[in-house]
């Protein structure tokens, strides 16, 4: 049995490993195309994949455009970190106001008094700030801009939330690996990337001040803390800027998307069963352990429970696929 899936690159390191282990254990072979969240949504809409994957849940308008009812299943929690490259500097702290100033290009040098005031313990070089952003449309940009729009009125007004934005300053690089590579190769740079990419390349990450006023280190625990929210029935919730005082603020679920009624087009019952079983396994303890091994935080219990309820509602010709 072979399934095809496509979508977000943000959770791709997790999916690649999990799907490989799953098929080794007798599960279906899954061809996952990391083509971006938008591509994942499009592929599901065109019914060319068994399931899609996205970092930004579908808006009501997007849901209305789909040919059938779509279910969101959260699979893990990822975080977007602020990675930087400053010679001899470690332990940089950033506030929402500083993020706004740096990424909008109004704070131009690293030793700007606004930055040094927040970082009294470290010596910042008199170096120009070079912002590195994603040149391609991306769920990472969506999560970062969703957070920025919540904490900065100026950002909300000028930039808004989206997978691609109109950047006033800095340089663009393609994909999480592109941004990570550019930052690690050039001094004075700062950019937002998926946690595991910064972690893997050992790029320093800033501690970001959360809604309770604490500077929070990006760690799996601080990501899990952010997921401490009331889970809506359809799991469509953004957990950026969490009210939890221990939460890292730029955190998000990432989702698998699939049709609630699996009998469509030429989709076979076998493929439907394999799809549901795979997604169910993905939210289970084995796969969640794989997630933490590649630096994504595992799902909180309420998300696992909600995913189980949603998966029980998946049908083929009106008949539930899971007993």
């Amino acid at each position: 049995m072979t399934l095809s899936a496509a979508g977000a690159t943000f959770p791709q390191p997790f999916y690649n490993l999990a799907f490989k282990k799953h098929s080794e254990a007798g599960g279906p072979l899954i061809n996952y195309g990391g083509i971006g969240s938008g591509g994942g949504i499009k592929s599901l809409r065109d019914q060319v994949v068994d399931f899609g994957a996205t970092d930004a849940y579908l808006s009501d308008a997007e849901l209305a455009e789909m040919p059938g009812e779509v279910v969101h299943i959260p699979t893990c929690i990822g975080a977007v970190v602020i990675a930087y490259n400053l010679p001899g500097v470690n332990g940089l702290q950033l506030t929402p106001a500083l993020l706004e100033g740096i990424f909008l290009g109004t704070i131009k040098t690293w030793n700007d008094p606004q930055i040094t005031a927040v970082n009294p313990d470290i010596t910042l070089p008199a170096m120009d700030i070079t912002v590195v952003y994603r040149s391609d449309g991306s769920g990472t940009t969506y999560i970062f801009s969703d957070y920025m729009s919540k904490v900065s009125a100026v950002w909300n007004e000028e930039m808004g939330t989206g997978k691609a934005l109109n950047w006033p300053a800095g340089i663009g690089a393609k994909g999480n690996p592109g941004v990570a590579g550019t930052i690690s190769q050039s001094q004075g740079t700062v950019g937002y990337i998926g946690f595991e990419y910064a972690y893997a390349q050992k790029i320093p990450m800033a501690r970001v001040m959360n809604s309770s006023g604490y500077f929070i280190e990006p760690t799996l625990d601080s990501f899990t803390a952010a997921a401490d929210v009331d889970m809506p029935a359809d799991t469509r919730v953004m957990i950026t800027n969490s009210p939890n005082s221990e939460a890292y603020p730029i955190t998000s679920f990432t989702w698998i998307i699939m049709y609630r009624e699996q009998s469509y087009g030429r989709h076979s019952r076998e493929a439907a069963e394999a799809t549901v079983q795979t997604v169910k396994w993905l939210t289970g303890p084995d796969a969640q352990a794989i997630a933490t091994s590649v630096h994504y935080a595992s799902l909180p219990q309420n998300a696992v429970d909600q995913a189980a309820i949603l998966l029980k509602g998946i049908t083929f010709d009106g008949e539930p696929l899971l007993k």
Partner: protein
Amino acid sequence: MAGDRITKALLFISSLTILLLSAGIILSLAGGAVPAFKEYGIGFITSTKWNPTAGSEEYGAMSFIAGTVITSILALIICIPMAFSTSLFIAEYYRGTRTAGILRSLVDLLAGIPSIVYGFWGFYALRPLLVSTGLTDQGFGIFTASLVLAIMIVPYATSLSAEIISMVPSELKEAAYSLGATRREVIFHVVIPSARSGIIASFILALGRALGETMAVTMLIGNANIMPRGLFAPGNTMASVIANQFGEADGLKMSALIAIGLLLFLITALVNALGKMIIKRFA
């Protein structure tokens, strides 16, 4: 003969396929570009705005047209002295020697290196070098992209120029020598004038290649969707913005990208046609 007829039919079908393919590409590009041109009219070409944020979407191609034209022309300017002198070396000064043979193979080797490898080299080797000169902070921008582009198009311009220079009839050169002309005089007064249009055409064809180059440029130009503000400022080209953004594009944005593709197609076709026209006149 039946065999002849079959061969003829096969050849006809395969050339017809090429024709249909090109027509199909143009048709689908034009069709996909319709919504963008409907929305913005001719202003799509002249506008420098590129704002993909939902709610305030606005697309214009001028920043990318400018980025493409500036980097390609700069690359051509940098390429001309390198390619011109190398082709003279190969096809005239050291014609037929082992040195020329080795140099020619090396030039051909340069042509065979994939774009991404040039980008890689630019990113890890050339960029730090430019940063160390102090001219630029991060080394990303128009100039770095143009420099790598220049190196990439040198082999095309060189081999074509060398071919044309070696086609200059030896009777002409021998006549000049017999009149007492020096080597330098023969080259500048006989060889170059008679090969002139062919050499110009080879540079125009090289320019055509530079216009569509994508991967190496994307890695070095900084991908800022704005009018370039200087030689060392970031910008973006038509091919590079398409490569970057089509994955997540939808609706009007997709149409805008397709329209940029169509414009790039037209510009490249125009430049190539110009090159071919000059070659034809030479021949």
